[in-house]
Structure formats: structure tokens, C-alpha cells
């Protein structure tokens, strides 16, 4: 029996055909989006014309004319808005990187502490986590800045640690290293030591794979790292010269200074994010079933190796995806700097520059694309790491 193919399906009207409908909906959606976009664009054009604002990015070449409290690259008031952009971007990255490092360390310690069989440690970690993750980050920043940093004594009465570190309401002053003539030799020695350790690790792994005999790498690595640079210092002298801050007049000179805004911001952000990371770490470790520990122990692995070779690699797989979003949150939360005037991307660029130039659209567009770029790069980096750590299944 043969039926023509086109009879096999009951034919309704064209409108009920799912394919036709799908096309129709998509065309309508695209038209709607384009229409909304055009509507906004058109309005913006007329509004800009009416207010006499010329659009374009040429304002980036104009001189900014304002000072910035913290700049990682050379900057003075006559520099351009374009340079201000880079100063702000670097300041944002600085806070994000320091915050991510601190939050990760604190978060892992707290997450493990919360699971500790020690009742007191567990409770302390729980109280920390439950307190700090339920208080808005901006409020924590305000607290550290207005209630703690700004109420510190002035430079003349600063709190000091061993005549080298000074903490006062203008920031934390610390000695700054500067490379002396022998720095090159010292640096070369460190590089050679690191290369040696890498080679040693490879050799020990290859021997372990081949013979099953284990060679503790740290036995060779620690002497290597101490002896070579040590020799360099002995032969050529101190590689770094330290300039310590000194009180002259009303303020300190010399050394490095961390401005109070930076301290408040990094403290608040890492304390806040650490609470979330701790929870991720805890759930990651709890996700590894107890059978894994038991299996490792029955294979004869000692406790340390069980943790390092069995528990942590499996827990990391669970931890990494939420950890990524915590990193993203921290990078985005660094924009709260605007609340206390730390010269980051938002407060410098979307704040001061926007107010001075009035180029709202360009400035906001640049700012948003910077954050988008930061977000995308963090998630790409973490996806790459995640893929490396992921379970390889047949």
C-alpha cells in the first residue's frame, strides 16, 4: 500500500503550521526589537541636537584638569580623559585582584573551618558567614571607611608597628622596595631556582610513573629556592633598597601608601565575598561522598594524600562554577567604590568625567563595556580551568 507523503499529515490552515508560526513570531520579534532600538536612537539624536551635545569620542583627547588620589601609572592634571580612563581601569583591576585573592584564601579557610569537627571553630565560622553575607556590601564599605578608617588618629598620632608601618586616617604607610644594582643577579637566581624546581617535579613524576617510587619534591625544592638566591645575595649584596616612610611636618614622606579608600574597599569586599566562597567550599566538600574517603583509606592512602588526591579534586569540580560567579560579583561590586570616592572606573569615569564633559552616552557605554569585558574574561578563564578540572568520561 502506498500513500503519497503529503497526505500523511492532516492539513490545517497555514496559520497552525508550527514552522510558519515560528517564522512569523521570529520576524515579529526582530521587527519589534529593531523598532524599539530605532525609537530610542531617534529620540536620543533629537534630544542631543536640542541640547547641543556633539556625540563622539573626541573628548577623550581633552585635558582632564583634576587630580586623582591614587594612580598606578603616571598622571597629572594636564593629562587627557583617555588617560583618566586607564587610571580608573587599573584601579578597578587592582581592587578586584586583591579582593579575589584575599576572599579566596579567607573563604577556603572559613569553609573548611565550618566543617571542622571542632565545635567551637565550626560555630565561629558559622557566625562569621551568617553575619557578613546578610549585610549589604555598600554598608560594609561605609562602615570600614566612615566609622573605622576616617576615625583613626591623624598622621602625628598614627598607630605604628615597629617604626616601619604607620596607620592613620590618611592611609597605611609602609616601606617601599626599589631594586638596587644587584637586583638582576638576584632575580636571575630566583628564575634559575624556579626552573630547577619545575624540572625536578617533572623528573620525580616521571620516575613515579615508571617505577612507583616516590620522591618528595619539597626535599629538593626548598633548598634550591633558599640556596641559589641566598648565594646571590651573599655575593652581590642586598638586591632591594627599602625606603621607609618618615614623618616630616604634617604628613609622611617616602615609602608606599595605601589610601584609606582602598583599604576600606578591599577589606569590605573580601570579608563579604569570603562568606559566600566559604559556603561554596563547604557545599563542594560535602558533595564528595563519604565512600570516596573510605575507599582512599582502604587503598592505604594517608589522611593528607586522601585530602589532596581524592577529596579536593572532586570537590573543586563542584566549587569552581559558583566560585566563578563569586569572582564576577566581586569584580562588579568593586564599582561600589563610587560610594566612598575611591578613584575606580565608575567614580572617576562615570562620575567625574561624565559630569565635566556631559558625554553621558559615550561614557556610560565605555564603562559598561569595560565591565562586560572583565566579566567575560573572568568567566572564560574560569571555564578554561573548569574544563581542565572536569571529569573526563569515556
Amino acid at each position, binding site marked *: 500500500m502506498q500513500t503519497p507523503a503529503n497526505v500523511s499529515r492532516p492539513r490545517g490552515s497555514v496559520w497552525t503550521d508550527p514552522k510558519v508560526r515560528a517564522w512569523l513570531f521570529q*520576524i515579529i520579534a526582530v521587527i519589534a526589537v529593531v523598532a524599539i532600538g530605532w525609537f530610542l536612537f531617534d529620540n536620543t539624536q533629537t534630544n542631543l541636537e536640542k541640547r547641543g551635545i556633539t556625540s563622539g569620542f573626541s573628548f577623550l583627547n581633552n585635558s582632564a584638569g583634576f587630580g586623582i588620589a591614587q594612580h598606578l601609572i603616571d598622571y597629572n592634571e594636564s593629562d587627557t580623559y583617555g588617560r583618566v580612563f586607564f587610571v580608573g581601569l587599573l584601579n578597578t583591576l587592582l581592587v578586584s585582584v586583591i579582593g579575589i585573592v584575599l576572599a579566596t584564601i579567607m573563604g577556603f579557610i572559613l569553609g573548611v573551618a565550618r566543617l571542622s569537627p571542632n565545635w567551637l*571553630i565550626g560555630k*565561629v565560622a558559622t557566625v562569621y558567614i551568617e553575619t557578613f553575607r546578610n549585610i549589604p556590601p555598600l554598608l560594609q564599605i561605609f562602615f570600614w571607611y566612615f566609622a573605622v578608617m576616617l576615625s583613626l588618629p591623624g598622621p602625628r598620632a598614627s598607630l605604628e608597628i615597629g617604626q616601619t608601618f604607620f596607620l592613620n586616617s590618611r592611609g597605611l604607610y609602609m616601606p617601599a622596595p626599589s631594586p638596587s644594582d644587584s637586583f638582576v643577579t638576584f632575580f636571575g637566581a630566583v628564575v634559575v631556582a624556579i626552573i630547577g624546581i619545575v624540572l625536578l617535579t617533572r623528573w620525580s613524576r616521571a620516575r613515579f610513573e615508571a617505577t612507583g617510587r616516590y620522591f618528595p619534591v619539597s626535599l629538593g625544592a626548598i633548598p634550591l629556592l633558599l640556596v641559589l638566591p641566598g648565594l646571590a645575595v651573599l655575593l652581590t649584596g642586598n638586591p632591594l633598597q627599602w625606603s621607609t616612610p618618615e614623618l616630616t611636618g604634617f604628613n609622611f614622606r617616602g615609602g608606599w601608601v595605601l589610601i584609606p579608600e582602598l583599604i576600606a574597599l578591599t577589606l569590605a569586599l573580601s570579608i563579604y565575598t569570603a562568606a559566600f566562597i566559604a559556603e561554596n567550599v563547604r557545599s563542594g566538600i560535602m558533595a564528595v561522598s563519604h565512600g570516596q574517603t573510605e575507599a582512599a583509606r582502604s587503598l592505604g592512602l594517608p589522611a593528607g594524600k586522601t585530602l589532596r588526591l581524592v577529596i579536593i579534586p572532586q570537590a573543586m569540580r563542584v566549587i569552581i562554577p559558583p566560585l566563578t560567579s563569586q569572582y564576577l560579583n566581586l569584580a562588579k561590586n568593586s564599582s561600589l567604590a563610587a560610594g566612598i570616592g575611591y578613584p575606580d572606573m565608575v567614580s572617576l569615569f562615570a562620575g567625574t568625567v561624565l559630569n565635566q564633559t556631559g558625554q553621558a552616552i559615550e561614557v556610560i557605554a565605555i564603562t559598561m563595556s569595560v565591565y562586560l569585558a572583565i566579566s567575560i574574561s573572568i568567566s572564560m578563564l574560569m571555564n578554561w580551568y573548569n574544563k581542565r578540572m572536569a571529569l573526563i568520561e569515556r
Partner: protein
Amino acid sequence: MSTHTFKPDLPPPLLSVGVLGWLRANLFSSWFNGLLTLFAAYLIWLVVPPLLQWAIIDADWVGTTRADCTSGGACWVFIQQRFGQFMYGFYPTELRWRVDLTLWLAVIGAAPLFISAMPRKAVYGLGFLVVYPLLAFWLLHGGSFGLREVATSQWGGLMLTLVIASVGIAGALPLGIMLALGRRSEMPAIRVICVTFIEFWRGVPLITVLFMSSVMLPLFLPEGMSFDKLMRALIGVILFQSAYIAEVVRGGLQAIPKGQYEAAAAMGLGYWRMMGLVILPQALKLVIPGIVNTFIALFKDTSLVIIIGLFDLLNSIKQATTDPVWLGMATEGYVFAALVFWIFCFGMSRYSMHLERKLNTGHKR
């Protein structure tokens, strides 16, 4: 016939039962553990006694002016004197009953939703969601039916925080659900539009969104069409939050087994009825804890409206601490703000955990 009588059992060793046993098992099971315990005890001793001393023992609780704070501890008189401003902002004092009434209506109106045995909960809930916002807006804003108008620029304090958070979530939910459906759609154009929208808002900080809505929105709109500051902030918050809701809902949609879709299609349900009657009720139930968590995040994020000059709880307190009469009260002010935020967020997170346990009805295997 000899009978054996057993001697009574020896009591367990003193070190393994009671307080001592507990201490040994939980605090001093090894020397390392003992060290950790001592360390933790030192930390507690370092933090807790000074805190109690400052916040309770040495604190001043009664008085009317700064001069009443004499004992050197926390000066809660400051909070007491400015409490009205922290709660209501610049809302006229004689009209504050309207704010209270709005809040009570919300509590009374929403209470039946938390009773498990309540019949026709969905119908009631939807009705509440439609009627209450209109009523609340009328009560808070006034301007018609005999109520005096209170411009949104006078709103402030905790009330404004709650308004932004609840309007934000109420607006973001429907938009977020639509975006999540769009992201899971089989039509490429719709999927691309939704993915772009979601990823854009998730990639930028809320602060820049608020900047954008306050600076750029007036440029985007035709002449004569303008919103007040609060409205602009709300639009920004809703767009931003809808992207996060969309991702939460997507998680729920992905957790629904394919059989449910196929069964619904086999019953002859079209797309909207399949989603409305079969998929979404199950998916939304799964993600209620996630939505509550998003709401907590939003609640904390409302404090950012300070950047565009709205007087929410945090900003009211910040302004009060710069008042020359009460200079130097920053710590008290921020501790109070932290306490208020903490109570709300902690309460909600406990509720979300409770829901998670209650709703965990066999979907996870």
C-alpha cells in the same frame, strides 16, 4: 538450683559522658584540635567582650540630645531621636499612618498565603498581587480620592528600601519568566535576543545600570515624557533583576524531565497552555528558594540607590551622621543599619531554607 545475679553495670568512664565527654569529643580530641579551640576562644574573647561593653553595658539608651551620651559607649539616643527619619524618610509626620497601614495590609493580606491548608490559594494570591499594588500606590502616593499627594521625592528610609525591593521583584518576575522561556525557545532569533538581553544585564554592575537609568533614560525618551527619580531607579532595577530571575527560572525549566513536555504535547496542548498548565507550575515551585535568594540579593542591592541620590535606609543614616549636631555617630548609625538589613536578610534566608526542605518532594533522586 543456683541463681545468678548480675552485678550492676559499671558507669561509663567519666571522660566519655556528660560535659567532660562532650568537651573531649568536640573540642579537645587531639592536640591540634585543642590548639584550634584555644585559638577560637582567644578570638571570641578578643571580639565579644569589648563589643558587649560598647553596645550594651556602657551604652546610653535614654535621653534627647547628644549631651545625654556621657558614659563612653554606644550612643543609641541618636538612633532613637532619628528613628522616624530612618523609617519614613521625609514623609510628612502626620501622614505616616498611611505607610504603616500599607505595611499592615501587606502583612494581613499575605498571611493566608503562608497557611498550607488554605483553599484556592493560587486564585487568592493572584488577586492579591493585582489589587494590593494599586492600593499600596494609592495609599503611599495619594493625590486622589481625598488623600493628600506625597511626592516620591519625600519617600525615604526603610519604607523606600522596601518599596524598591518589592516593586523590583514584582516587576522582574514576569519579565524574567518570559526571558527564561525565550532562552529555552526553539526559535533562534528569539533565543538570541533573550540571551543577549540576559547576558548584558548580568555582565554589568547595578551601579552602572542606575547611572544609566538616571543619566541616559531622559535622553532615550521623547520630549515631554519623563519619569521621576524613583521611577527611573525602579526601571533600572527591574531590567537588571529580570536577567537574574531568568537564569533562576531557567534552572527550574531544565530540571523538568522531557516526558512532561512530551506528555503535555500528546494531550494536544499548545505552547502557552503547555507552559502555563504543566511546565511552569512545576518549574516555579522548584525555584521558589532561588527566587527568594534573588530577592535577598536585590534587597541588599537597594542600598545602591544612594549613588543616584535617593534617600533609602542607608542614605538616611549616612545623612544623619553628617548632621553637625550628631557628628561622630557613624559607628552607631552603620551598626543600626547593618542590624536592620541583617534581620531582614537572615529571616528571608532561613525562610528560603525552610521552603527548600518543604518543597523537596522527590524531584531529586
